[in-house]
């Protein structure tokens, strides 16, 4: 069972302030930390578990700059076999469909039974690149996947998709296919020290647009149907009343409100 996993390096913005930069189309990333997109981390784990059960190899693909190598190497350290990074100035600013075109070109000559992507990215949150990729290469897909079982003959998989309210929808899908992996499907492992050392020596094949047979006008912002015109701060409703002071004081104020409202 050969598995391809698409991973993206994303900034961690959950706990940091996000500042719009001068272009208004991007954010100031200088003070942010980066890592693998959360769903993609689960996708890597799922791929490695399948390889451990059924043999085969795992190929990691990422579209991004040199810094993405750290994310790729971590996936290799956990058990990935081969890796490819797609980098070209032409790829910049692409919407999910443009990213999918580059990924489609990258997997074209690979032998795979399953392609995993994450269900969505933490930064853009399009939830679209994987399903678009599947359509481009003509394989069936399912996304928001939280359970995967390869059926006996290796020609089909039983897949559980997580719907609203936590309801699971089970379906059978032909391989090869593309599955968009949702968080919580497994318990992602940590890389071993040995794995990290071995991964440091592995080659990451670098491909630009022309290596992939893509015209610059097909990819990136030029090849996108939708472009980001401008970021603005979000429209928030009425902000919470924020209590100021030392923990002692703020906790007392919050407790007083609870009392007032008859909650204590």
């Amino acid at each position, binding site marked *: 069972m050969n598995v391809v996993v698409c991973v993206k390096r994303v900034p961690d913005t959950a706990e940091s302030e996000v500042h719009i930069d001068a272009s208004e189309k991007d954010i100031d990333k200088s003070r942010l930390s980066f890592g693998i997109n959360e769903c993609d981390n689960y996708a890597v784990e799922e791929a490695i578990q399948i390889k451990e059960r059924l043999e085969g190899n795992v190929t990691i693909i990422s579209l991004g700059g040199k810094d993405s190598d750290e994310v790729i190497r971590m996936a290799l350290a956990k058990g990935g076999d081969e890796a490819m990074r797609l980098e070209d100035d032409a790829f910049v600013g692409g919407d999910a469909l443009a990213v999918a075109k580059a990924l489609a070109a990258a997997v074209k000559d690979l032998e795979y039974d399953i392609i995993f992507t994450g269900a969505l990215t933490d930064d853009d949150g399009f*939830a*679209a690149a994987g399903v678009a990729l599947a359509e481009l290469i003509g394989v069936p897909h399912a996304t928001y996947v939280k359970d995967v079982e390869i059926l006996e003959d290796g020609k089909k998989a039983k897949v559980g998709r997580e719907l609203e309210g936590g309801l699971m929808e089970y379906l059978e*899908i*032909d391989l090869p296919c593309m599955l968009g992996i949702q968080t919580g499907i497994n318990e992602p492992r940590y890389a071993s020290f040995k794995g990290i050392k071995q991964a440091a020596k592995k080659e990451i094949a670098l491909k630009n647009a022309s290596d992939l047979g893509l015209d610059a006008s097909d990819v990136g912002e030029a090849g996108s149907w939708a472009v980001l015109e401008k970021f603005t701060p979000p429209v928030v409703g009425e902000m*919470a009343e924020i209590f100021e002071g030392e923990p002692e004081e703020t906790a007392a104020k919050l407790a007083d409100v609870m009392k007032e409202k008859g909650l204590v």
Partner: protein
Amino acid sequence: MKDIFVLLEHRRGEMRDVSVEMLSGAAKLGGSVVAVLLGKDVDEFANKAAGYADKVLYVNDDMFENFNAEAYQKALSALIKEHDPGMILIPNSAQGVDIAPALAVELEAPLVTDITAIEMEGDKPKPTRQYYGGKLDAHMAMKDADVYILTVREATFPADEPSKSGEVVKVDNPVSEEIAYRKFLEYVEPEAGEVDITQSTLLIGVGRGIREDKNLPVAEELAEALGADLAASRAVVDAGWMPSDRQVGISGKTVKPKLYLAIGISGAFQHVTGMKSSEVIMAINKDPDAPIFGIADYGIVDDLFKVVPKLVEKIKELKGA
């Protein structure tokens, strides 16, 4: 202006709220609203939709008894080719995200997902969507195209009262070939746990800010002092720190307690959907820009590990008094 297609969503005999929300929103964009409904025995939904749409196009066929992305995509692309709408609104739901990107590729149409607002520029939609977990709004522009595909976040548009009586047109299933690659098997309900948090009066929502499961006693002590139950964000459930029946949000439970106190929860839309109707919302988070403060009534911007123990003391004092 060309028609606006709105794909209705239903599951297990119920039309989902987002359907009427989208029809209500679409009615304000100008252009005729055409509700598109794929299902089996869905005449009742078709009639209901007519109250919100200028026209209802619906297919009653065994093929659509349960959701299948492959069948939906084939039917939608055939209907779009035949009727030539100017845009199609699809819910940004687990169903919608499984269809829209493939449909966009097939039709070579612009796609913007998870939109939270639409303005019109002539006949062309200009959607807004969020990036970075709701920390920024982004105004999107699309190249000119015959049809624009937008997936719409739940609760983006308020649901109106029915005010139209659109023509209801039942059409033959436009998909003649077999659905070969994907087969629906079954639905499996999430497991119930010890406590049904939808019944709790007071809830402490625990988020990733708790850092490790060995810190959970910090939240447990608060819950005990207050007489509250513990709930969790998805991040906490995914990490295995709390069981999934405690998860609040779009893929978990919807709760309406008298008090929801969120500690170390950022307030992602998918979480907020499940708790925004709580009577009083309080949040403790060290990030002043955390979206949770946008929906909370009261907040403390600080380290939860410093504030919560003090809060426990204060509550005990108040209770003792």
